[in-house]
């Protein structure tokens, strides 16, 4: 390895020796250019392209939150890295897995693929906004607890948001309708049947109320 030139400090020797034959692949492709988060660190050093406001007000889980955002910033990253709401998970950052699902005006969306500035004036609800401030679980969450739902549960916040959207739209779905409504969420543990069981129970809790004595 000693013949290889490695410069990992900012002030290299002036002469660049050992220009070695072969393919020069400077700037090797980063395969994941969109899975990026620009934080406050260099935000001020960059010219902000486009006429988008930086400091905006979001309505998240019923609260007004002032937040400094960038034009290309996704809602998932704003929630996770600026508002401390890490319940929303990122499994792919590509609208493939649904782990980042949350509600915007009651409609489930993949927050990895929603620009934060586009939700100004709209109601955003994340997993943290479901239980009451006193800790009482949302009927959907209670149904999941009663049904012992989820394994690793990394998909759970996204699934639960989709379940909430379903039962609020249709509190009496068939199992097939429920499966379709939740098909935008991946569970790699493939705990789909238990999730469906919990969804049907959640619909019942929504119709009939949560039983006084939960299991």
């Amino acid at each position, binding site marked *: 390895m000693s013949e*290889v*030139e*490695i*410069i*990992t400090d*900012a*002030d*290299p020797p002036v002469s660049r020796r*050992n*220009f*070695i034959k*072969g*393919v020069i692949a*400077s*700037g090797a492709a*980063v*395969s994941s250019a969109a*899975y*990026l*988060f*620009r934080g406050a*660190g*260099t935000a001020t*050093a960059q010219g902000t392209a486009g006429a988008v406001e930086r400091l905006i007000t979001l309505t998240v889980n019923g609260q007004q939150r002032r937040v400094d955002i960038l034009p290309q910033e996704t809602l998932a990253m704003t929630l*996770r890295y600026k508002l401390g709401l*890490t*319940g*929303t998970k*990122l*499994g*792919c*950052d590509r609208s*493939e*897995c649904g782990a980042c699902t949350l509600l915007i005006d009651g409609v489930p969306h993949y927050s990895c693929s929603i620009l934060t500035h586009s939700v100004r004036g709209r109601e955003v609800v994340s*997993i*943290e906004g479901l239980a009451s401030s006193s800790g009482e*679980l949302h009927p959907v969450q209670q149904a*999941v*607890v009663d049904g*012992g739902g989820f*394994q*690793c549960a*990394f*998909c*759970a*916040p996204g699934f639960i948001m989709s379940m909430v959207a379903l039962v609020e739209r249709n509190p009496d779905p068939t199992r097939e309708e429920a499966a*379709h409504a939740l*098909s935008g*969420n*991946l*569970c*790699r*543990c*493939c*705990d*789909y*049947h*238990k*999730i*469906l069981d919990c969804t049907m129970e959640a619909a019942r809790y929504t119709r009939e109320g949560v039983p006084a004595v939960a299991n």
Partner: protein
Amino acid sequence: MAGKWKLIGEDIAPPDLVAKITGKAKYAEDFRAEGMLFAKVLASPMPHARVTRIDASAALRMPGVEGVITAEDLPPSDNPYAERALTMEPLYEGEAILAVAAVDETTAADAIERIEIDFEPLPFVVDPLDSLRPGGPDARVDGNSFVREEGETHLRSIKWSAEAFENAGDGLAMGEVNAEWKVGDIEEGFSDADFVLDETIVHQSLTHHPLEPRSCMAYWQNGKLYLHASTQSAMRTAGAVARGVGIDTDDLVFVAEYCGGGFGSKISGTVNMPIPALLARKTGKPVMYRVTRAEENYFGRARPGFQARVKMGWRADGRLTALDLFIVQDNGPYGRQSDMFTAGTIGSLAYTPLTMRFRGVSVLTNTPPRSAQRGPGGVQVVAMLEPLMDRAARQLGIDRVAMRRINAADRNTKFGSGQAALTSAFVREAIDLGAELFDWEAKSRMSGQRNGTKVTGVGVAVSPFVGGSIGFDGLVILKEDGKLYIHQGIGNLGTHSVADTARAAAEVLDMPWEQVEIVWGSTARNLPYSAVQAGSQTTHAHTRANYAAGLDAKRKLQELAARDLGGSPDDYDVGGGRVYNRGNRSRSMTLAAAARRAVVLGGRYDGHELPEDINDATVKSATALAGQGLMGVAKDTFPREGSTFTWVIGFARVEIDVETGHAEIVEYVATTDCGTMLHPRSLGAQIYGGSIQGFGVAMSQKWVYDPQWGVPFTKGFHMAKPPTMLDVPLDVQWAAVNEPDPYNPVGCKGIGEPPVGAGAGAVACAIQDALGAAAFNRTPITTEMIMAELEDIPAPFRQPTAHL
């Protein structure tokens, strides 16, 4: 056994469930630290190359860029073949070469673009058979296959003759192997056979793709490394972290309370864990390394694919007389993979052939690193062989379930190269239970029936896998608050075993579950030496270990009571929150009071004196906990004769649309012999979840590689095609034989792995059945393969090519 236990066999949700479903549970990427930087890696754009020059000076001069590390920053490794977090000789496209830390990710990514790096391209290969051809490329400079000689691992270059390839035609060529064993006289086995199949079969490689990427975050405080990572096993990961960073485990606080799925890809953590740790040390700031889904495809591990030649012979009565298994295993570039060996063992156990030969060669390729994936080796062999069992049954006029019963293992079976014995086996019971639940008799008559454009097929598969290991430690403390604190060194990967195996200790002490606290998830919490959370060993191993710790605590309670209340320890029992005299229940003390007495007495009662046979890691943890209450600490020394194996039997019904080639699974039933049911609802979830992963093996998940450039096309979820909710039948059932394993104090065996093979095998058989015993000999069975079969045109690939 019914009624013997209060907690074993009950549906009790794990205590962390509310945290998981309210967003409070913190996975690795959910942690933050003041001044946290973000890391990005520069990944190899080539499948095999040598880095000849790196100049990061321009990148480092960018505002916000704080540091760069390369392989030179890693601690030295004494194994020249070992995979490390960064490399100067990338062995697959996507392997990490260097990492940059910057104030945010876009800056880090911009910095990567400013790094000047030169590569010298090296020969590469993505299909093992191309490497075995005369003059074929080797995946590594020193060879294409690991061999063990005199206790050391070497690389050798194995090539087969041109004639071997020419003679094979579309079949798999056969040449030199580096693993072989046999039981009985295989030639005699074939001469006893009335029907023989000799087939070439390809099983795909596929990425694990847990939903949580292997992101990790690190910082240093007062010389100690704090690392948040995603791992299947907590205690057994700490050593890997320390080695990867070059520190002592005493200087590490490793936090891994939650793991968003592993399936074998995060057994002892992940190869990238040192990256944020070393960047944090270099920059003096916390570093978060968020791993992308594409990176998961690259270094998130994958199941080794097989190209196999399988020759099987059956007597007219259906008995398998000979199994000749010849496997070319796609090893990936690192680590000697053991799937093919396990495939031999599982093949032997699944069908109990009267004679058997196993031959295998594991060939290195410039494709992502492999590791165990749920049912390693077992899934491949079941998915490959079950359709052959069906074809033989059809030829011999034997019912396919009867065929499985005829060849099923039982308590007296000896299997594998060492002719090992079993602790228990209720395989025929599980087959019969499933056949009844599925109504095989009626359903099998639907085979080949046409309804509109749909044709029906049914299939059955028998899938055994390892169900337990032994010899780990249990550690519990009964504290003055009257609660039992059960310390678990295993991980929390979603199987619920971190909670469920604790029940064994609670049972011994008759503790109500509300009085039990489970302590897990961080090396700072003083955890015992544990099994790696893999190979379905945990349920068996840690019910044993926790039972042992419970018994130790119980004995100490009996001694304390005798000492204070008179009589001998054996006069006392524990129950209802008290230790009491059997003859006179009023002579008793509460467990809280006993805990206080234990602290007063000290010595072995409160952990100041420890047993000599426990692991050093347990000694450290127990010593730190000494004086907090009455300690139960013990190594599992319960006897075991034989190997512990679990079975899952899968039954599938599919409908294939003859106009589109689309196959849909419409019904699935699975039954198991996994000993006593520990947690029925969770058991059902393991059976279904594993089976569905098997559906992905049978029908959808694969890699596609461009052999010209050695680069993959299948990097995201939508290309890798794991099953979604719409790919599973709504009509499912499961059941368990529920017979205790005699070598586990609560009768339990593991369950995680065998459902995958059951799902894959049953679906592959059902598809084959719908199409009249069509021989696909390849997984996944995709729509275009089914269409080619329906239209009677050549298969859309050339067997036995890999990664198509």
